[in-house]
């Protein structure tokens, strides 16, 4: 058991490329922290540096108050679960799990005991004498977890451990990982590109982009108070809708209509924002079928009409897709998000808006529908820097400091 502290850790390759830029992160003992971001954001490099598989160019890495920059991986007392599982194909499940203990010259009785215990936790008891080649994907994944568990290490490092599983199994294993981590209370750093995994698993989530830490915080904080456009677009599924807007006296002019600013937003903007362009962010669930909005709430929002292209019924709610006149909001961050989500490849357009409506809605595909948008949770972003102009101050400070 130990805490992990990254103090301005930087990874620069010999050719000058910076993979990780001055990352500072404190991971408390027993905490489950997720590193999330699109591919190439430096999250795996960060994990490999913690593991000791890559050298740290600058900065300091401490595990349990000990600087380990130059300590070999085997002496760091951490276990790692790999994306490919990296099971030793020539060993049985039992031998795979016992390998680390054997290398550490643990007495045989202790090894047996620990392997049996881990196999019981992971429901692998009847597979102990089989080779990895004869196991299913989910079983292999559990063996990989088992190999980490038996060591009883100071920390677990997991590098996209679920991404090789099919969708259904992934959801199951996600719960399993969470349960095991709670039970063992071992400090865990988990890398993923999947924001759903990040939201559901972590005590805290660290969003990375281009080697820089964007925001660290409780999943709900990231969702409610993203510090910039990138975090806002990355966290949440379906993703936040963005549209260009223009800040005028007390309102934002958008294609949805004039959205009045809340007192809170106005205070955050502090009068600085009149006659300037912004990017407006609205979560899908902030829309509603105008007919279903309780009369008391109607005043908090604006009603507009739009032609619904596609309607997806999820049972519990309905996703309505529609387009607005005029072009989409543009920024480097949004482009990167589009690339990451594959929207840039599939030819989907950036000006499409997703609304999450109550399942009771009567709207049909192709209808000119009356929709309502709640203006209270509106986010306004600076188009150039991507900074969130409406960050709730108390939330922002909470997100900056590790909880």
């Amino acid at each position: 058991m130990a805490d992990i502290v990254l103090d301005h850790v930087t990874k620069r390759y010999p050719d000058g490329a910076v993979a990780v830029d001055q990352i500072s992160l404190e991971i408390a003992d027993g905490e489950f922290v997720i590193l999330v971001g699109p591919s190439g954001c430096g999250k795996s490099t960060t994990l490999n540096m913690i593991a000791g598989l890559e050298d740290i160019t600058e900065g300091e890495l401490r595990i349990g108050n000990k600087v380990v920059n130059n300590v070999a991986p085997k002496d760091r007392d951490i276990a790692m679960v790999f994306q490919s599982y990296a099971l030793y194909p020539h060993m049985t499940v039992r031998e795979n799990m016992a390998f680390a203990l054997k290398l550490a010259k643990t007495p045989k009785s202790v090894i047996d005991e620990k392997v049996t215990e881990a196999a019981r936790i992971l429901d692998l008891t009847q597979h102990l004498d089989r080779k990895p080649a004869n196991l299913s994907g989910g079983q292999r994944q559990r063996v990989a977890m088992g190999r980490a568990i038996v060591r009883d290490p100071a920390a677990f490092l997991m590098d996209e451990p679920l991404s090789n599983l099919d969708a259904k199994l992934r959801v199951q294993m996600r719960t399993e990982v969470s349960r095991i981590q709670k039970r063992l209370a071992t400090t865990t750093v988990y890398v993923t590109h999947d924001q759903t995994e990040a939201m559901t698993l972590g005590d805290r989530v660290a969003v990375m982009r281009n080697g820089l830490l964007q925001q660290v915080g409780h999943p709900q904080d990231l969702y409610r108070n993203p510090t910039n456009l990138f975090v806002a677009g990355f966290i949440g599924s379906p993703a936040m809708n963005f549209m260009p807007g223009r800040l005028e006296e007390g309102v934002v002019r958008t294609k949805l209509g004039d959205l009045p600013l809340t007192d809170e937003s106005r205070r955050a903007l502090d009068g600085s924002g009149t006659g300037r362009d912004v990017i407006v962010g609205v979560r899908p669930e902030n829309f509603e079928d105008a007919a279903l909005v309780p009369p008391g709430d109607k005043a908090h929002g604006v009603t507009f009409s739009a032609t619904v292209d596609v309607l997806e019924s999820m049972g519990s709610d309905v996703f309505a897709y529609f387009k607005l006149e005029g072009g989409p909001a543009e920024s480097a961050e949004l482009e990167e998000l589009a690339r990451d989500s594959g929207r840039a490849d599939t030819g989907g357009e950036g000006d499409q808006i997703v609304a999450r409506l109550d399942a009771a809605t009567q709207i049909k595909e192709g209808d000119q529908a009356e929709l309502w948008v709640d203006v209270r949770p509106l986010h306004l972003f600076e188009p150039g820097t991507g900074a969130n102009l409406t960050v709730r101050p108390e939330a922002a400070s909470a997100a900056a400091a590790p909880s």
Partner: protein
Amino acid sequence: MASTTKEKVGWSTANILVVLFAIIPVLWILSLSFKDPSSLTDGSFVPKDWTWSNYKGIFKTSEFTRALVNSIGIALISTFVAVLFASMAAYAIARLRFPGKSVLIGMSLLIAMFPAISLVTPLFNIERNLGIFDTWIGLIIPYITFGLPLAIYTLSAFFREIPWELEKAAKMDGATPFQAFTKVIAPLAAPGMFTTAILVFILCWNDFLFAISLTSTLRARTVPAAIGFFTGSSQFESPIGSIAAASVIITIPIIVFVLFFQRRIVAGLTSGAVKG
């Protein structure tokens, strides 16, 4: 693939021709080895009187048996040393980035391409000055030299196919680089090592050039060279029967090897071809 009768006949004929072309000389040698000296030139492909006398003859003197011992010993030692060093070199080439890597690969390719005949005279002089002429070590050293490039190439192709994450996993499990190599990588590369060993063994086993040039007595003369010194039991007797019998004997281990490890050799050669 659908094939017409015409295509089938065409291919079958071609295949049979190629196989005949390769196998007739072998059968011929086999046939000669069973003929007695008087009927050697009778022109019949199948011996009229089968005899073991050629085989008995070559095992009577130490000329052949001693050469056989030399051949086996020298080929085994050369193979072992070459594969041992090549596995380390190939591992480094497949896994590590180090300065001079491409130079190393180029050099080993250069050695493999180098015409051995041009080395014979210098080697002859060097070995005589060093006093290792006509010794086992005098043959083992050049065999290792020419076996290494072959072994490095084949093995690095095998090592490249082993997922790198396994090694990382071993490192995280607390293995030293040496332990990671011996406990994880080497067992997985075992088929590759086997194939390589067989290829290098055949290379050493078949060599005639060095064997004839760098030996002068039975001390280190290997079978291919020894066969060249065969004489008949009298000056006027042709040694052809004995030569044929000896050739058959030294072919047997190779045939056994190849039949036994056929699939592995094929896998090794093709993986070397595609990935190397």
